[in-house]
């Protein structure tokens, strides 16, 4: 999992962007609201001017706004909202939507058939499966119940008996939204429990016995476990003189993403424990700086090839990108450090205190290796990590490791280590000698093999400040799904106030789809803006497809035709870009599942951002729904 710059932001940074307010979520929200109000006023005026004439139309619009502010908002009664929400809830339940939960359980029961048992990381597979299944099922359900309910009521005229009671449009809209959210909640809870059981039960296994145990020269025992669930572990137990009972413990290797504890009691009997619990690491990230082979500070690491397509990561630019003020990609790719030179990557960690790390610094590494020549293919590329004082000339001796690509490698750093203090070699205490008074510590990552490369991103190296229980992480992933559901419901209800059921559903679906493919739209716009040939917009792509042209060549048509095509495409792509920017960033929210699947604690800040965005969109949808419902002739 590679984190992008915006993933590191705190809630406040995301909301305000202290250095560049143009990129802030707050501004984006404000612009969205202002746009909605301006467009709403214009559309409202055109409609009512058409209905009542230009002068009276103006008053009609003014009255509608006055009604909202003076009567309908203050007059909204929680009682009635609750009654209507209860009705929506009962409707959904009596229409047997809980069937979907059954469907989900059936899906889990059948999952064993198609989840690859030989996967190298079954936990990831299982977790991402349950979360993805839940996510799409719930979104589909939200789409259906929200888009069809109100149009059905209007079609069957049951709405007549509602609107002829002292019920306000605000209450009808809020009631629906809250009712359906309650339905979703009622469904998500059993689905979450089923998921938790499925994952924890599905991954739990016991190795019953050990085989081939050999006593090494240093007295340690090396052996293997038996073969269970398509894997076995090897383990090492170091002799333990301190335990008077003669009990010794060791760890197995990491296979299928987990380890076991192996215990040998005084009688020589081995016992293999359950797999480690599922993880939710809480990372503490540092700031990264790259230095080239000459030891000079650089903006980025070595680019080893097609790592940077100059695309992606625009989502963090907010409004400034749409109006053309910030261009270019912001996507973080791996930067590489050349081996056997002065090239290095320096990470500055804040807040390294004995309170946070009482048992030593747990360093986790997700690194990549790039071989410029084949070398010794049997052994991996080696790197080293050195702890260094931020300002003084004190550093530890390098600790070397072998790069394990595509998994999180754990490297516990000792609290006391040999090192140099101004050319003097001595025993160093990490917290006393290496961490400065502000709690800062620098880690230097180097590649040891000459002319081979080590790749790293900012999120590739972190200090593990702790772990959260898996159930809590899963809950957070479900909260994220709930937020997406709330958004889809809000959009569905909004469209259903002025469209018929099927059309409202398609409209909501289109919004979801466009939200999901926002990054691709941004990409296309970026390529058009910077004149990079990447297939162009929809029409150009179609022409290329039909002509069987490659996407990176010049568009090989008549100049006028090319101009026409490109202009039209630009128009389409710019409009799509604007719309996509206005829509919720669903992929980001779906992405929280990736955190859980990769064994990372879902950041609170991330969840709060999603919650704030969801609230904003729901509010917007609520206001738009109100005006549509209010200005609609229910009986027409």
């Amino acid at each position, binding site marked *: 999992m590679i984190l992008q710059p915006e993933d590191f932001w705190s809630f406040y940074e995301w909301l305000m962007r202290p250095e560049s307010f143009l990129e802030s979520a707050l501004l984006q929200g404000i612009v969205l609201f202002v746009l909605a109000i301006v467009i709403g006023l214009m559309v409202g005026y055109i409609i009512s001017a058409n209905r009542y004439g230009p002068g009276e139309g103006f008053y009609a619009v003014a009255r509608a706004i006055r009604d909202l502010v003076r009567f309908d908002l203050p*007059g909204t009664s929680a009682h009635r909202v609750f*009654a209507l929400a209860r009705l929506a809830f009962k409707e959904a339940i009596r229409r047997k939507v809980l069937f979907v939960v059954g469907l989900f359980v059936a899906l889990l029961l059948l999952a064993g058939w198609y989840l690859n048992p030989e996967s190298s990381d079954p936990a990831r597979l299982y977790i991402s499966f349950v979360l993805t299944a839940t996510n799409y099922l719930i979104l589909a359900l939200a789409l259906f119940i929200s888009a069809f309910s109100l149009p059905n009521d209007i079609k069957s005229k049951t709405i*007549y008996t509602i609107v002829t009671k*002292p019920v306000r449009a605000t209450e009808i809209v809020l009631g629906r939204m809250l009712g359906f959210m309650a339905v979703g909640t009622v469904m998500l809870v059993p689905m979450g429990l089923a998921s938790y059981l499925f994952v924890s039960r599905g991954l739990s296994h016991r190795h019953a016995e050990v085989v081939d145990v050999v006593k090494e020269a240093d007295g340690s025992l090396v052996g293997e476990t038996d073969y269970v669930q398509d894997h076995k572990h090897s383990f090492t137990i170091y002799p333990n003189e301190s335990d008077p009972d003669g009990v010794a413990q060791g760890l197995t290797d990491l296979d299928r993403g987990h380890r076991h504890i192996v215990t040998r009691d005084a009688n020589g009997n081995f016992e293999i424990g359950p797999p480690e619990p599922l993880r939710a690491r809480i990372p503490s990230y540092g700031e990264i700086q790259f230095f080239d082979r000459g030891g000079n500070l650089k903006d980025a690491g070595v680019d080893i090839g097609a790592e940077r397509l100059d695309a992606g990561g625009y989502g963090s630019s907010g409004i400034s990108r749409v109006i053309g003020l910030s261009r270019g990609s912001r996507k973080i790719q791996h930067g590489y450090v050349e081996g056997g030179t002065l090239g290095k990557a320096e990470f500055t960690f804040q807040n390294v205190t004995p309170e946070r790390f009482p048992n030593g610094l747990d360093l986790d590494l997700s690194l990549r290796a790039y071989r410029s020549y084949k070398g010794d293919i049997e052994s991996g590329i080696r790197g080293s990590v050195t702890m260094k004082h931020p300002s003084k000339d004190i550093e530890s001796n390098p600790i070397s490791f072998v790069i394990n690509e595509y998994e999180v490698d754990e490297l516990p750093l000792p609290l006391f280590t040999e090192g140099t203090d101004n050319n003097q070699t001595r025993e160093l205490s990490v917290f006393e000698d290496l961490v400065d008074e502000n709690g800062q510590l620098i880690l230097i990552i180097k590649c040891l093999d000459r002319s081979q490369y080590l790749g790293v991103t900012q999120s590739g190296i972190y200090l593990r400040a702790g772990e959260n229980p898996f159930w809590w992480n899963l809950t957070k992933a479900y909260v994220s799904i709930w937020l997406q559901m709330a958004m889809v419901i809000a959009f569905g209800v909004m469209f259903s106030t002025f469209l018929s059921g099927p059309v409202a559903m398609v409209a909501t679906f289109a919004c979801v789809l466009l939200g999901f493919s926002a990054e691709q739209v941004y990409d296309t716009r970026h390529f058009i803006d910077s004149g990079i040939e990447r297939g162009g917009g929809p029409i150009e792509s179609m022409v290329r497809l039909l002509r069987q042209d490659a996407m990176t060549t010049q568009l090989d048509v008549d100049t006028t035709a090319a101009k026409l095509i490109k202009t039209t495409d630009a128009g389409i792509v710019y409009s799509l870009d604007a719309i996509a920017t206005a829509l919720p960033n669903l992929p980001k929210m779906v992405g929280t599942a990736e955190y859980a699947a990769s064994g990372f604690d879902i950041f609170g800040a991330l969840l709060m951002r999603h919650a704030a965005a969801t609230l904003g969109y729901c509010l917007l949808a609520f206001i738009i729904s109100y005006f549509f419902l209010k200005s609609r002739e229910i009986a027409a």
Partner: protein
Amino acid sequence: MENDSTVVAETEPADAPEAKNGDSDSGVVIETRNLSKIYRDFWGRKKVNALKSLDIEVRQGEVFGLLGPNGSGKSTTIKLILGLLFPSSGRVLVFDKDASETSKNERIGYLPEESYLYKFLTAEETLDFYGRLFDMSGSARKQRVDELIKLVGLQGAKHRQLREYSKGMTRRVGLAQALINDPDLVLLDEPTTGLDPIGSREMKDLILSLKKQGKTVLLCSHQLADVQDVCDRVAILDQGELKELGRVADLLKVQDVTEIHTKRLKPEVEAEIRAIIEREGGTCTIDNPTATMEDLFLNIVRESEARPGARRVSGSNTPQETTDTDQKAEDNQGEAGQ
């Protein structure tokens, strides 16, 4: 029936005392001013001119009927009054408030043309739900729901979902929901449609009892007999235009015919009366009145309920002098029998 010996001559019928209420100088509940409605299609092209410059006033305490053939604008008028439609021009005032104001609904009960209710709710849940929409407190709501269920006679079926209900039963729930807030103004769209004669009679009795309680009722109906039975004033619409407006009694009065009701007369008395009228230069018919089908039916049902299993033989009972009909109902029977 032949031994029912009432002689009917024709004379000016006396007004029922209640009917006078409509004339009193009480407040105006509904007022339409130059009310017009043009239905347009999506492109704003005119489709139908459903209502043309309607001016009516419905006063407090009266039962007002809207009559007219299909497509004459009755339902459009009711929907405009309720704010379900917006007028193309003109205004509707209900309790001196614009029809688009939600707060007017506090005092309104509306029974739609068909009972558009939530089929997945039971009768009790339905009424409870509508009670909640009036912000009624829990206890008040429960009491009112029980009262109404009793009133419409659904005690035995209150826990069943409405999808299992017959049309008549749904209609009763519809009526009960219209009365949940004890409204001052009741709008009834085709109130007797879908009801059997008993239900229809009960509905009419209920309308009259609402009137007695001083409520205002506006109804529209095709059942001319029903309108005649209960309405104080009617407006007759055709093709969106008001054709006739006035008190039922005045509109229906046949000015040049006199009707006399009396107990069975001896033949000689009959001959004498005939002679007197002929001497004055008039002509007359003397006949036994016929009862209405409604009375006959109601009597049969009442009797069968009183004595289950007994079989009624035609002619063994009189259709008149039932105990529980009030004065007004009897008057109405007389009118209906013409």
